[in-house]
């Protein structure tokens, strides 16, 4: 009894924190003229929805592009971090703490500080205004999230599986891809989620390096957010919110299934 009551109040708080703003967004998207002191909008209009429907091709295209380069960024950071993370989790060497600190700095300094200089270099090596350029710059400042998650993953996993597999005659590649990689999936998901969100919501870097040739959802959304068209901004924000949530739900369900099938988790 006591427990259900406590759950109830938790749910109320969560609903207030997460659902109420969404309700407000939905209302604003349908009532751009909603103004103080009206508690409920006085008039509804479908102009924002109408604009969205007329431009859905362009907006969805931008959304697909953002989704695509964000996933590629996750893959790039994974590639960059897998082996360094293994070394950091397993070995001690002089200057390790210092090096680890240095490796984490891109997440701490504002991207502005290095982006302008990198833009110049990217133009020189013809990476500016291309998707590989955008993926690379995003990976360069979001990899610390992946790195941290992987180091933690390797540490949790310990050395036993690897030693065991080696004793059974597995090659280093086999150990990495067939033993360690599956065990690391939870860490990859954790790090990858953060990297995905960072890449997906980045505006400035995509804008600068993509130069308008790489469409992005934030590039479509931000000018409208700073304009006074509140209903359109609300609609796009809802989409912005919906896509990552959808991705996480799909990922969560498919992971659960995979684990259950392998019997790695009790049903």
């Amino acid at each position: 009894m006591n427990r259900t009551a406590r759950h109830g109040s938790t749910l109320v708080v969560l609903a207030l924190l997460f659902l109420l703003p969404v309700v407000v967004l939905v209302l604003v998207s349908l009532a751009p003229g909603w103004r103080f002191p009206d508690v409920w909008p006085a008039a509804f209009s479908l102009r924002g929805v109408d604009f969205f429907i007329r431009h859905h091709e362009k907006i969805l295209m931008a959304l697909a592009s953002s989704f695509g380069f964000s996933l590629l960024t996750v893959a790039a950071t994974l590639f960059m971090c897998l082996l360094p993370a293994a070394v950091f989790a397993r070995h001690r060497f002089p200057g390790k703490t210092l090096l680890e600190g240095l490796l984490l700095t891109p997440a701490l300094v504002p991207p502005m500080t290095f982006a302008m200089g990198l833009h110049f270099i990217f133009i020189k090596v013809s990476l500016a205004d291309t998707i590989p350029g955008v993926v690379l710059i995003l990976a360069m400042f979001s990899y610390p999230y992946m790195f941290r998650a992987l180091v933690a993953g390797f540490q949790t996993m310990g050395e036993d599986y690897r030693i065991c597999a080696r004793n059974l005659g597995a090659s280093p590649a086999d150990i990495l891809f067939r033993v360690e990689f599956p065990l690391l999936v939870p860490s990859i998901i954790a790090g990858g989620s953060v990297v995905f969100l960072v890449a997906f919501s980045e505006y400035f870097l995509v804008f600068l390096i993509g130069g308008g040739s790489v469409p992005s959802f934030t590039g479509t959304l931000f000018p409208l957010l700073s304009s006074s068209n509140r209903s359109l901004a609300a609609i796009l924000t809802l989409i912005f919110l919906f896509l990552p949530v959808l991705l996480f739900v799909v990922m969560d369900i498919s992971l659960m299934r995979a684990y259950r099938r392998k019997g790695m988790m009790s049903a």
Partner: protein
Amino acid sequence: MKRIALTLMILWAALILPVAPAGADDTALQHLPFEQIVEKARGTEVRWYMYGGWAHVNDWVDTHVAAEMKKRYDIRLVRVPMDAGVFVNKLLNEKAAGKQKGNIDLLWINGENFKNAKEAGLLFGPFADTLPNVKKYVDPASVTHDFGYPVEGYEAPYGRAQFVFEYDSAQVTPPADLAGLKAWIMANPGRFTYPQPPDFTGSAFIRQVFYAVTGGHDQYMAGWDADLFAKKAPLLWKWLNEVEPYLWQKGRTYPKDSATLDTLFSRGEVAFGMSYHPSHAQSKIIEGSYPATARTFVLKDGAIFNTHFTAIPFNAPNKAGGMVLANLLISADIQLSKYRPDQWGDFPALDISRLPEADQKRFQDVDLGPATLGSEILGPVAVPEIPSAYLEALEQGWKEHVLDK
């Protein structure tokens, strides 16, 4: 070790080696008859970089202008939303890195961004005077200068705007002049504010006050005069600081841009909005953001107007396409559709009296809507923009003498 050294050397070489300079193609383009330019551009893609914060303008470009470009010239128009300051920076970087083939074909630009771009050699030109529609319909005297800076054919006129105030006629009666506005602000604390310069609209507001409290615009038209500025600017700071305690939030903070002011006005938090587009209020009524009783007014002391332009970057991959688009934008059909408040409501940059009579009639028949003032009211109070050196000094001075004082 050797390999690392080699990689570094290659990188270094890539960074310092100059890229081949642009060919003679560009100069040829400036002397080609326009029909041949059109032929060159047919079937290509034109990328137009422009401010993207106005949904109705985006809409108009994506549907109307894009359809006309496709129909008349079989050119695919791609609109890319990017602020003018950002693309000027992008071009500066590309220039410095020697990139001769960019990805921008046309820019929507004016004022200090144009000046900075032209001075840094970021623009292709002169091209504007070779465009047939510019030759036929534009009064050359009206486009010689952009914020006091000579245009010299490096940008083609595209639209005209004039500063107006907005109010809700169901709530307040607007003041007639600047003195009246000051009295109103002091009598109604917390109900007036202006966007923080260097926001485009807020900056225009303080320029208007500057003209009004220092005795008119004529004295500034000759160009930058440091002594004059030092003598006159304190009068502006005094006026602004006198009203500051009576502003929204007691003047401790200002709306960061004109869109924020629009929102404050649409929610009824402040009594006056302002816009550099005379038909902005009408568009907002149609959009449903402003009450149907919203109207606009100008102060007797003057209302600044300016012309906005399109320009072509030095490294545009499709300069011919950019010229075709710039020419189409200043055609009677496009200017007319742009003029209609349900499309955009931007004022035409061409001289209507130079049009054939049937077209003149079409312009006169446009219903601007009840919230937009006619040219009989806007015309007499129109005052030109200040040279951009003053503009920059005013924006800096505002921060020092009003915001941070």
